[in-house]
């Protein structure tokens, strides 16, 4: 008898915050249909098409010399672009989160700029800088330096499109953590590097990994910007996404999807790691909240 009022109020509370059963079911079905058509089926079709002609065709497409060279260039590009943007991200976040200065919000806006630029334009700006018709083109040609339609151009375009990833992850994270712990280390006699390695880095590691994994996914998957500066020379300036395009346009669909399935697997690994890092980030955030 005594428990009735409580359960009744709980029931009412539940009822006012949820919809009738048929509404819930309709919403769920419509949402699922949308996600099926736009997420699940596109992902499935990649793997189904990749194996449509059997394992041997699949393996052959991945081990073909041009595919291997494209994979090598993709790895090389990411290996240069990700560490450089990581160093930039840490430096930018340190100066923005730990110090006060004029023009800070302008700097934050400028760091986000590459995200709002079309990938095609991101490639074009380097053609207009370093290409034959570009500002430095004649000088580069006179000194026999080739940046555009060559590997350096691909790296530059990738640097541009992946520029904000680490910085935009670290800036809000380090701002929310404040400067007390670092100042305590300073008072105890730690040097700048010691503070960074032993105090700041352990605090930001999950956010840092989160930024790095997204930066890497974009660096390995970038298509538009790289397409403009690459020149599409097989075996020399083709990355994996460009290799997919060439195979697909040659109606070599099974091979195109085989290489694409490799990139799709990379995307799935990225999503899994991202969820894992996000979970740690949330844990850290609730831990800070409960201790402070």
């Amino acid at each position, binding site marked *: 008898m005594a428990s009735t009022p409580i359960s009744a109020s709980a029931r009412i509370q539940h009822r006012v915050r949820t919809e009738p059963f048929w509404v819930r079911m309709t919403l769920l079905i419509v949402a699922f249909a949308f996600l099926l058509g*736009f997420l699940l089926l596109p992902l499935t079709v990649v793997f189904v098409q990749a194996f449509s002609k059997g394992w041997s065709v699949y393996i052959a497409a991945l081990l073909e010399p041009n595919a291997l060279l494209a994979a090598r260039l993709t790895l090389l590009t990411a290996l240069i672009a990700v560490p450089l943007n990581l160093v930039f991200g840490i430096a*930018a976040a340190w100066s923005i989160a730990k110090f006060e200065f004029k023009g800070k919000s302008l700097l934050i806006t400028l760091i986000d700029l590459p995200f709002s*630029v079309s990938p095609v*334009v991101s490639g*074009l700006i380097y053609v207009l800088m370093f290409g034959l018709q570009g500002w430095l083109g004649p000088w580069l040609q006179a000194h026999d330096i080739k940046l555009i339609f060559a590997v350096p151009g691909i790296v530059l375009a990738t640097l*541009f499109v992946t520029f904000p990833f680490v910085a935009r992850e670290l800036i809000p994270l380090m701002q929310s953590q404040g400067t007390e712990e670092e100042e305590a280390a300073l008072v105890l006699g730690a040097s700048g590097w010691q503070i960074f390695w032993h105090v700041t880095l352990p605090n930001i590691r999950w956010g840092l990994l989160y930024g790095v994994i997204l930066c890497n996914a974009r660096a390995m998957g970038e298509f538009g910007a790289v397409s403009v500066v690459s020149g599409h020379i097989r075996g020399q300036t083709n990355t994996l996404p460009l290799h997919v395009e060439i195979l697909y346009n040659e109606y070599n669909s099974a091979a195109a999807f085989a290489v694409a399935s490799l990139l799709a697997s990379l995307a799935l690994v990225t999503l899994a790691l991202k969820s894992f890092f996000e979970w740690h980030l949330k844990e850290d955030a609730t831990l800070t909240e409960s201790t402070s």
Partner: protein
Amino acid sequence: MAYSFSTLIQKRGVLPGFSLTLGFSVLYLCLIVLIPLSATFLKAAPLGFQGFWDVITQPRVLASYRLTFGASLAAATINAFFGLLVAWVLVRYDFFGKKLIDALVDLPFALPTAVAGIALATLYSSKGWVGHLLAPYGIKIAYTPLGVVVALTFIGLPFVVRTIQPILEDFESELEEAAASLGANRWQTFSRVIFPTLAPALLTGFALAFARAVGEYGSVIFIAGNIPMVSEITPLLIITKLEQYDYAGATALAVSMLVVSFTLLLTINALQRWAHLRKF
């Protein structure tokens, strides 16, 4: 003198490394982003205003603007509606595989655009899994402007979901209970209490999806068909002009797109500030 120096330190912060990190950040930002972007604007200057205007008002260019902005608007609208629905379902309902679906929403961020492009083209062609269901009704998606809308919807999908989700999670249940106890039915509570709170975030997500769609290239070109005047997007036209060695034309188009992008960026910043203010 010593006094003013110490107040400066107090105002700025006491930790080491300020000049080094800020100096490096600004230098790197200038080298990678600001100088190449400014160089593009300078490259367009010799055209003059008349020359610039002549390029960006060519019929083929105008047709590409109509398609790019029209399809982006359509895709962002579809995403605003379904993004709100997906966010609602993910936050409010319990079902099997919820965590997996939640993680999968970010697929368009992680999947290389070229892979998305060939997958969507295959899926929505008249022989594809989805396309062959629609073909008997005379609906063609791949290689028509509709295909562009489909690709741009895919690419913008996470933006609305991810901007609405946190707002919906933080939403105070007291407000809904108050509305219900004052006699509002469920639809009235949603449209008059919940929706107004979500509106700024919904608009921000819409703008983010639209901004991303306007510049998108990789996922579109495989499904679009790329017929001049019909299904040719502006970024593709830039590449076409570049391949014809029409550098002036490509630059003019790029500058017009940069102006649009920067305007959108400023709008989104303003929207986010507004959404932030509305929260408190």
